[in-house]
């Protein structure tokens, strides 16, 4: 039963629209009632916000193309300066009104010129009387452009005195957009996130034809069970679903289980999905690498990711240098004496230390240390004697270039250079093996 009804638009179009945008009927009907009939003036500006991949761009595009309303669609990340943005709008207007692909270059520097050229462009035949929609995607970039772009777009209907509505799509709420001295408030609309039922419905829609819908629905159920707590992003889930489906079907293909044997399928897929969370979800390895790994049988070895630590090969002394740097960064100077000398004295806990015990150094980040301290710690942790040759010093500089250490302060400090260690404990542990 069609739930989208509107007297101005033909029912066949509305039915098709409904099939293309599942789970978004109430938002689309609200938009339709705002748009009204083709020649009626609508609200000058509409602001739509919602989570990542909650369907804002998709629904807007499908709505405008299915109902064939004249529109201009611009992504503000692609056209990131005001001049690019305004020129692109005018170019798209040309193709909108003349119906052909021919566009002549347009020169438009300021908003003033834009308004003038816009009035000329809209005066053509096809656009006569119909509302023109300008859709600006990723509208949060408008805040970074000149200060008058956003208020001007919100009032475009008033400034140009034509039948035009500006629609802004963004992830960020309107309160963070509002300029300091106020502006014309747009009509704000929220696209709610998909619930787990909705996600299931949408994901199960694109099942491959070889398997039944129930089989795929069960697979989606398992996938959502593992990933739903972490991520609700439709695009990511779709990506993961497509990648892991082959592995899920393996037992069926090999003949070990039939489609209904859920326990076996679950046991097969579960460690695989856990591995996927660490790698493909984090985009540490690309999807083609993942597929190749699946093909090769996938022995449970270490997956080499983008930030995998094990394949960073450092020479012998560099490893010690790095460990010494880590110790120097994270241990306070007071404790050096205790850890590194053969005969240490007792350290009395003073009041000062008691108060500051709570914020451990691990939480606040590495502290800078002078070069002498690094060398001192190095000598004490390396077993055999180390001579302070130029070799050691050059290794320190190469660590800085690799960004495993970072230099703090200016180059020409009189006390000697100070460094900071920029790697984490896991890295150090991996190196120390």
């Amino acid at each position, binding site marked *: 039963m069609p739930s989208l*009804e509107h*007297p101005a638009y033909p029912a066949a179009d509305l039915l098709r629209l409904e099939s293309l945008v599942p789970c978004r009927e109430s938002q689309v009907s*609200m938009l339709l*009632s*705002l748009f009204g009939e083709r020649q009626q003036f609508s*609200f000058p500006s509409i602001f739509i*916000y*919602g*989570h*990542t991949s*909650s369907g804002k761009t998709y629904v807007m595009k499908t709505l405008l193309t299915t109902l064939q309303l004249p529109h201009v669609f611009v992504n503000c990340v692609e056209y990131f300066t005001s001049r690019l943005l305004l020129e692109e709008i005018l170019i798209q207007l040309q193709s909108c009104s003349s119906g052909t692909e021919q566009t002549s270059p347009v020169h438009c520097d*300021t*908003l*003033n010129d834009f*308004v003038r050229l816009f009035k000329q462009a809209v005066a053509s035949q096809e656009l006569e009387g119909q509302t023109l929609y300008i859709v600006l995607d990723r509208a949060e970039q408008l805040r970074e452009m*000149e200060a*008058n772009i956003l*208020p*001007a777009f919100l*009032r475009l209907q*008033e*400034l140009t005195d034509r039948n035009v509505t500006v629609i802004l799509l963004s*992830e*960020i*709420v309107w*309160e*963070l957009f509002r300029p300091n*001295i*106020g*502006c*014309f*408030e747009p*009509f*704000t609309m*929220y696209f*709610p*996130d998909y*619930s*787990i039922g909705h996600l299931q419905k949408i994901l199960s829609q694109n099942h491959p034809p070889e398997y039944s819908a129930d089989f795929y629905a069960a697979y989606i159920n398992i996938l959502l069970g593992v990933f*739903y*707590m*972490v991520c*609700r992003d439709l695009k990511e889930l779709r990506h993961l679903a497509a990648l892991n489906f082959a592995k899920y079907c393996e037992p069926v293909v090999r003949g070990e289980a039939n489609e209904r044997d859920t326990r076996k399928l679950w046991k097969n897929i579960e460690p695989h999905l856990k591995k996927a*969370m*660490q790698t493909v*979800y*984090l985009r*540490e390895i690309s999807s083609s690498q993942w597929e190749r790994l699946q093909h090769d049988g996938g022995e449970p070895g270490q997956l080499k990711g983008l*930030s995998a630590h094990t394949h960073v090969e450092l020479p012998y002394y560099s490893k010690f240098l790095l460990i010494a740097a880590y110790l120097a960064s994270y241990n306070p100077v007071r404790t050096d004496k205790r850890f590194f000398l053969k005969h240490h004295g007792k350290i009395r806990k003073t009041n000062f230390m008691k108060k500051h015990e*709570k914020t451990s150094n*691990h*939480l*606040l*980040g*590495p502290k800078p240390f002078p070069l002498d301290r690094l060398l001192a710690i190095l000598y004490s942790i390396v077993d055999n004697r180390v001579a302070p040759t130029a070799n050691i010093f050059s290794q320190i500089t190469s660590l800085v270039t690799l960004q495993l250490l*970072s230099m*703090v302060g200016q180059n020409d400090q009189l006390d000697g250079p100070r460094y900071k260690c*920029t790697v*984490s404990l*896991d890295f150090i542990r991996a190196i120390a093996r």
Partner: protein
Amino acid sequence: QHRHLLELLKRTTVHGESNSALIIGPRGSGKTALLNHVLKDLREMKQVRENLLEKPFLPGLLQTNDKVALKEITRQLQLENVVGDKVFGSFAENLAFLLEALRKGDRSSSCPILFVLDEFDLFVHHKNQTLLYNLFDISQSAQTPVTVIGLTCRQDILELLEKRVKSRFSHRQIYLMNSFDFKQYIKIFKKQLSLPAEFPDESFAQKWNNNVQHLSEDKTVQDVLQNLFHHTKDLRSLHLLLMLAVSAVTVHHPLLTAADLQEASRQHSTDSKANIVHGLSVLEICLIIAMKHLNEVYDGEPFNFQMVYNEFQKFIQRKAHSMYNFEKPVVMKAFEHLLQLELVKPLERPSARAQREYLLMKLLLDSSQIMDALQLYPNCPTDVKQWAASSLSWL
């Protein structure tokens, strides 16, 4: 105020006096509407129609600097050096020419010009305020009768003017305030919703207007309007609310009901950040709760990712049975999603030197907002909810 403005403009056009005035009022109080109304009245007065009234209208949002404004003025006045649609010459030449043209006329033989500057405060920020200086200068000297009317929403506009500009300004200010009370508000509500007499379908118009009358006497509707009235007297918000309500009217549901208005009011006043929090995943909610606890313990001092992760670990080890202990990079990705949604904001720009995990941030949500949003959150595991509500006595 209407009369005041009308009088002013009449004096310019009929008697040839030069004037300047500023119309000041908060946003949405109808400054542009007032001006348009007055101009319409003016055009209908017989004396004025005999004089030619030129009207350069300069919206402040579009004129970003004086050069652009000057071009626009010359274009609208259609002066001689406009060839086709192009205006050339340097800024100084243009200004001199314009002034010449205006100066040649005197009281009897030239037509009065009305300059309307919308968003006057933006003109004040131009370099040296040259345009304003020149316009006010002309309005003070006895040449072509010129009236300059500025519209602005800033109360302190006079302080922003330079001394020489301020002295040439006639200090005539017209204030527009939304000074009606609730009864008049309801009357405005009725008037906005009623259909005009020219509506084609007479019987429907009659039914609709009766319904509107009914509604304005209904107690729940009055409550809704009272709420909005306490929040802002601005008529634009009333429009938005009515727009939301009217969009529920369809062919099957032809008359507006009190429930529609209540629904519209609820939608109008939802907290948008709560909506965003509603759509986060459980891991992200846990991170936000961890940040809330950190804010409470450290009295609002900024935190970094490492601290938040620590809190999360403590929660997992002690209390959680439904949350799986996620790896650190996965938690980092959730944290970066929160950054992208601008619920958490770094205190300074991230540099190449500092590691991302140790960058100091602050949370842009209030703790009461978080608690309210958690109530509405679907399928929230109970131990997460209890963690949120607990106070940290075991730190």
